[in-house]
């Protein structure tokens, strides 16, 4: 069963607090969070969170397409490296 709409999206309170202070401070730091269950809200767009995966904080640069997803979806707990071959990375 999905979450009731009247409750609104779930976000851990400390995530909101940290995001707000980072935004108001205008700092360009990675906001370290452990809450993988928190929903990504529109006010997080443009911020970079370090989402804990059980070992380290994975940088997650929040964009508009990510709104409504959970932070944990972008910080896998298992890493597969594979071969580089012709894979590309884009600097944004």
């Amino acid at each position, binding site marked *: 069963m999905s979450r009731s709409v009247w409750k609104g999206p779930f976000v851990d309170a400390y995530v909101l607090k940290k995001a707000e202070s980072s935004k108001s401070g205008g700092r360009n730091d990675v906001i370290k969070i452990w809450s993988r269950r928190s929903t990504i809200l529109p006010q997080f767009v443009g911020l970079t969170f370090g989402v804990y995966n059980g070992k380290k904080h994975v940088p997650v640069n929040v964009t508009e397409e990510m709104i409504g997803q959970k932070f944990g979806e972008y910080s896998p707990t298992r890493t597969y490296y594979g071969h580089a071959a*012709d894979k590309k990375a884009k600097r944004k």
Partner: protein
Amino acid sequence: MTVSDNRIIVGSLAGAFGVKGEVRLKSFCAKPEDIALYTPLTTDDGRIFRVVVIIGQAAGALVARIEGIDTKEEADAMRGVSLYAERARLPHLPDDEYYHADLIGLPVLDTGGRELGHVRAVLNHGAGDILEVLAPDASDTVLLPFTLAAVPTVDLSAGRIIADPPEGLF
């Protein structure tokens, strides 16, 4: 044609497919079928395959016909062999786009010239590319977002990356 050191691994052979000399080909490319564009492919022992034609797909691999492999026995004998392409065969990329193969191994310096480590891997979990940097004398790695703010300069000709990492990362 000689085999140069400037090669990147693009796939491997996984044995025969059927009895007519077709092979199961594991491609490591972003688009698996692109492996055929990077011919000639070479092996560790210096064998060169000039023509690779993709003819289908099997479970977890492509099915291909490779010039020089004509029988099932030859294809089976090549099981596990890695295939390499010349780096120069990869197409040029626009600004701010880089091949993982070019970034891996590059030293990462901070804006003051202090060495932070070298790139061990390039990751992407759906929220932008990330450089995994292994610091000298450290066993654990640091994940650095591959953004213009955090990585202002990538100098492939000089072989270095200048980073301005967010506070508290290193």
